[in-house]
């Protein structure tokens, strides 16, 4: 674990893997909930957790550097199920990258339990991990100028669902009608870091 100061009151804690980042994130949330850590923002990402708005960053940095990272807590939270149709325009390309028939892409994807590693890009957009690394796919060489809301897509080790229409370079494999972000709902975001996710194929897809 390497702790890098960020500006005056933030720290970037770097760990070796995405799993470690998720474990560290869970531990930092636990500390904040019990009152032993004061941070305005705790932002997990691919291999790091950012702590922003700290009272005494230098002291926390020393403490974290000396600390052993506890193992990830047991997965007890309920699973969010996202119904979808595997009808994306890049399904054939993904099948070719994976070296399987198109139907197999849907089967493999729907059998995987995902976890939200981190959020970003847009409110409600979660970077979902869970697919074995042999199923990593590159981004499209030319990004689309408009990806429809509800598109389910793959890039690198991640799966994501576009909360609203935006430009994007991920490989589109399906479509869902689920609403990822609704600020009239509590919580507004369906997916937050740590949420477990399963994709459920809709009948006929």
């Amino acid at each position, binding site marked *: 674990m390497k702790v*890098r*100061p*960020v*500006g*005056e009151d*933030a720290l*970037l804690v770097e760990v070796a893997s995405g799993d470690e980042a998720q474990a560290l994130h869970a531990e930092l949330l636990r500390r904040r909930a019990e009152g032993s850590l004061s941070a*305005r*923002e*705790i*932002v*997990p*990402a*691919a*291999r*790091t*957790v*950012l702590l*922003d*708005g700290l009272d005494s960053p*230098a002291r926390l940095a020393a403490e974290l550097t000396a600390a052993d990272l506890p193992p990830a807590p047991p997965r007890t939270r309920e699973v969010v199920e996202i119904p979808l149709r595997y009808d994306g325009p890049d399904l054939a390309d993904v099948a070719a990258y994976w070296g399987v028939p198109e139907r197999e892409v849907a089967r493999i994807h729907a059998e995987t339990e995902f976890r939200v590693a*981190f*959020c*970003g*890009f*847009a*409110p*409600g*957009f979660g*970077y979902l991990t869970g697919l074995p690394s042999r199923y990593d796919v590159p981004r499209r060489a030319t990004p689309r100028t408009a990806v429809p809301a509800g598109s389910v897509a793959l890039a690198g080790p991640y799966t994501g669902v576009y909360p*609203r229409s935006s430009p994007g370079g991920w490989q589109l494999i399906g479509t869902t009608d689920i609403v990822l972000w609704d*600020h009239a709902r509590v919580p*507004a*975001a369906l997916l*937050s*870091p740590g949420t477990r996710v399963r994709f459920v194929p809709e009948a006929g897809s």
Partner: protein
Amino acid sequence: MTDRALAVVRAGALTTVQDLGRPGHAHLGVPRSGALDGPAADLVNRLVGNPRGTAVLETTLNGCAVRPRSTVVIAVAGAHCRVTVDGRPVPWGAPVRVPAGALLDVGPALSGVRAYVGLSGGIAVEPVLGSRSTDLLSGLGPAPLTDGTVLPLGRPTGAHARVDVAPQPAPPSELVLRVTLGPRDDWFTPEAIRAFLSRPYRVSASGNRIGLRTEGPALERARHGELPSEGMVLGAVQVPPDGRPVVFLADHPTTGGYPVIAVVRAADLPAAAQAVPGTPVRFVAVRRR
């Protein structure tokens, strides 16, 4: 006309509703947002008797014009500009009573970029995650103003200040940004770090509420390849592949994959919000306190 609302007559290049923003939601991909020149927004609220953090209007370069439907006290600060009510000049940087139905015109910036219009009672659009701020990156909060928009106003809670004019900093003729290096300064060559801290940059015309873009020497990386996405803070100086530093402002993305060479002190960012394109920029290294 007694309803507490205002009609937008001239929206200007970019006029948004801003308050203190919505910090605390970065883990959901929600930028903090909020007024770029916080001290100016605080000042107009004080002048009209609003609590700190009441929603105000933030204009960009060419002001805006609005017609309140009830009598309000207004104040304009930030970018220096000509302010008129029904065509008659009124003071800038001081509380002014605008009668119901009168036209308040906030003219183009004579110096600076963003003017703030405080109105007694504040803009009372529905808050999203505790804030009324327009967030241009993710589209939260009210859309930027358009001609004909009608915005609700809140009830005044306090008396306006008794001042003729409030002192305010002038916009910078040279933008000096104090930075602490890191967290990814090790991704750059020593020459790049030296250039960053000693060579002149200029404010680019393509900046926005997301970031202040700069023009100047391109910073060469010592490490290539991809940085896995990581959390970003306000004031982060991110260096995209073209090598030109971008200073992240209020609507910045919450995670990003380009290395951050340094972070600008928060106290220096209001001046960045008022620096016109072409303003010389110097990044000056300071020790962490």
